[in-house]
């Protein structure tokens, strides 16, 4: 933490500076009174004192105040101290006799110069006696003079007592005394005030320090070291009662907060260790599941291609699927969902999947497979786990699907208007040993139709508002898609979009769909080759496979154009990742190219033609002809992987 100064220290510093400043200002203004100011003060004081004495009716006889028993010297002594002068002298001058008589000299302090002064004054008065004889001419402020030999300021003022007598009142002040009096003033008034203020503030600061600054420092140090001290026993800020003020409130709030935080941290620690354990378990489950259920699978089977995708949710829901070709024309697809999550679900899933696979490989029907697996699972299922399973065996030539259902969602029949199939749902696998009712039946896929199998992770995917994706959402997602791969991808993407950042359950999709198909009505003329080549180029790109396919198509189509006399022709192209099927139909004269000599002629005779069909045979995997409804139908399949 950044090192900071103390609040208290800065306040003390501020106080010291202002006190010093105050003293300096006061002293300066006091000491440096100008000479003129000093003299003016003395001059006006002289008039005042003289006036006072006049009012008190001073007479010339022994300095007694008339009608009063107060001695003149007493009065003057009081005036001395009141007006802060060193001496006041009253001198009686007789205008007729020129006699000068010092009536009285008063002093406020023990000035020993009093006798010296008297003589000096007398001498001075003698010098000025002519002036005093005409006091009426004496106007304005009395002049102040400086007696250098005595370091004394001196001011006098005449009062006319009677026709003969003039009373001259003089005030005398030592130069140093004049300055001292000002300083004394300052000291006597300002310093006590200042001291009281400083003392008060000092006491206040001490209070602030002990009552506010110290507790705050303590709280802040606790805050800084909170994490280091975590798990040590925190003592409260105040051992006993907290002060009954805001600091008390803060310290109690801090105590409460720190105990709350400690409680939370303990909770978090506990949750963290639980979570680590759960993650380890999930890691095991994930390894089992991904080892057994591939994330993606593509497969060609007869007129169909199959695309499957599986994505596990974070907590591993136990979905599985399986696709394989039982024989040349039978495709087996299995999809299932095991109850529970985590390792137990993964293990149970792998057991069920293996059991199903073994039965199907042994030639069991889907129904018999599920029946056997159910009994096997029931024998050792202490955890009462169960699974939903759907098995479909598809004839990839006729589109006939035989299925068995153990409580799984109904499949979707894909095509121009996709719809959910109505199938018996059957009972869940693993729950009822004897009373198990496996749903079974068959579906006939028409031309252009396919089958979609899925787990409830699709239709029951939840969005942020806990809304299901729903069966309508599924149908909407696959609308307009024309290949197994596209349907599979579109559905998975839509479920992802609906779910947001994290899947709520495993999502598994298996799509069986006729391979990509293009139907072309062709005029039986050579310019139609451009249409055929365009379609092949779109499907296969600019590849050797495309040129091989174009060669085969040209040979067959040229035959139709040249020899059959057909008026209409049609070509259906269906492609899968590994092969391309062509089916030429024309309404011309019956002509069976497969009956033509399959052997290539002698090269020297090739200028006579007849090499087209042998070329086609050499390049195709299969080649067949049939005559139906008055039409020639030639079907062939190219192995694209061999033509790359």
């Amino acid at each position, binding site marked *: 933490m950044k090192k900071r100064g103390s609040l208290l220290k800065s306040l003390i510093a501020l106080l010291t500076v202002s006190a010093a400043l105050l003293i300096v200002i006061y002293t300066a203004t006091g000491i440096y009174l100008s000479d003129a100011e000093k003299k003016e003060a003395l001059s006006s004081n002289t008039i005042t004192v003289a006036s006072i004495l006049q009012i008190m009716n001073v007479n010339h006889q022994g300095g007694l105040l008339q009608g009063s028993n107060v001695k003149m010297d007493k009065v003057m002594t009081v005036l001395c101290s009141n007006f802060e002068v060193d001496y006041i002298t009253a001198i009686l001058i007789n205008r007729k006799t020129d006699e000068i008589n010092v009536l009285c000299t008063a002093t406020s302090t023990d000035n020993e110069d009093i006798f010296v002064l008297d003589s000096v004054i007398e001498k001075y008065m003698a010098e000025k006696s002519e002036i005093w004889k005409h006091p009426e001419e004496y106007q304005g402020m009395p002049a102040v003079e400086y007696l250098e030999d005595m370091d004394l300021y001196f001011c006098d003022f005449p009062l006319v007592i009677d026709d003969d007598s003039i009373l001259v009142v003089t005030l005398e002040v030592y130069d140093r005394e004049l300055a001292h009096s000002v300083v004394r003033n300052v000291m006597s008034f300002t310093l006590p005030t200042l001291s009281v203020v400083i003392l008060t503030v000092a006491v206040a600061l001490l209070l602030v320090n002990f009552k506010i600054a110290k507790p705050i420092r303590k709280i802040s140090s606790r805050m800084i070291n909170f994490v280091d001290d975590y798990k040590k026993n925190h003592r409260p800020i105040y051992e006993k009662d907290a002060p009954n003020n805001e600091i008390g409130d803060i310290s109690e709030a801090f105590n409460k907060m720190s105990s709350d935080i400690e409680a939370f941290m303990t909770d978090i620690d506990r949750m963290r260790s639980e979570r680590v354990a759960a993650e380890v378990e999930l890691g095991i489950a994930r390894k089992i599941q991904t080892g057994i259920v591939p994330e993606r699978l593509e497969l060609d089977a007869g007129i169909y291609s199959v695309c499957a995708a599986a994505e596990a949710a974070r907590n591993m829901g136990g979905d599985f699927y399986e696709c394989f070709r039982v024989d040349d024309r039978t495709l087996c697809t299995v999809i299932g969902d095991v109850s529970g999550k985590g390792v137990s679900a993964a293990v149970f899933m792998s057991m069920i999947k293996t059991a199903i696979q073994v039965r199907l490989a042994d030639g069991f029907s889907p129904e018999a497979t599920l029946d056997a697996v159910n009994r096997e699972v029931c024998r050792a299922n202490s955890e009462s786990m169960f699974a939903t399973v759907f098995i479909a065996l598809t004839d990839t030539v006729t589109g006939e699907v035989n299925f068995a259902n153990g409580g799984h969602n109904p499949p979707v029949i894909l095509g121009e208007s996709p719809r959910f199939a109505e199938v018996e749902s059957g009972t869940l696998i693993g729950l009822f040993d004897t009373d198990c009712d496996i749903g079974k039946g068959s579906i006939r896929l028409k031309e252009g139709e396919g089958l979609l199998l899925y787990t409830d992770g699709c239709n029951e995917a939840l969005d942020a508002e806990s809304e299901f994706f729903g069966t309508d959402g599924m149908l909407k997602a696959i609308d307009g898609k024309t290949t197994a791969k596209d349907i599979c991808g579109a559905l998975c993407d839509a479920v992802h979009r609906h779910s947001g950042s994290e899947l709520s359950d495993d999502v598994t999709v298996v799509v069986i769909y006729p391979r990509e198909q293009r139907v072309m009505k062709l005029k039986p003329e050579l310019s139609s080759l451009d249409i055929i080549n365009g379609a092949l180029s779109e499907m296969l790109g600019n590849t050797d496979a495309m*040129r091989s396919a174009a060669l085969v198509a040209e040979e067959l189509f040229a035959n139709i154009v040249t020899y059959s006399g057909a008026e209409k022709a049609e070509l259906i192209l269906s492609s899968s990742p590994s092969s391309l099927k062509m089916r030429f139909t024309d309404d011309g004269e019956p002509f069976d190219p497969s009956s033509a000599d399959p052997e290539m002629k002698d090269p020297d005779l090739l*200028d006579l033609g007849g090499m087209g069909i042998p070329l086609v045979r050499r390049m195709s995997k299969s080649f067949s002809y049939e005559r139906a409804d008055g039409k020639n139908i030639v079907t062939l399949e190219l192995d694209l992987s061999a033509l790359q």
Partner: protein
Amino acid sequence: MTVNKTVNGSSAVLYIEGWLDIRSSSELASEIEGLDSSINELELDLSKLEYISSAGVRLVVTLHKKYPSFKITHASPSVMTVLKMTGLDKRLNIE
């Protein structure tokens, strides 16, 4: 398909580019018909030929029979595949 030719006295080289199918074969045939009758040495440079069908092969055999000296050069692998299937690779002068 496009054809470029260089004629040098009694010998000619035809550079054939693109697709040689049933339609372009007849174009090529009439192109060769138009060659000077004094030419007895013909070379087909197929380095830019992408595709050949049976019609093209027929034309090649015809030319092989017509010209005393006839050869094919620079055939691409996919063209060679077709020539091999017809057995012409053993009969023709292919370089």
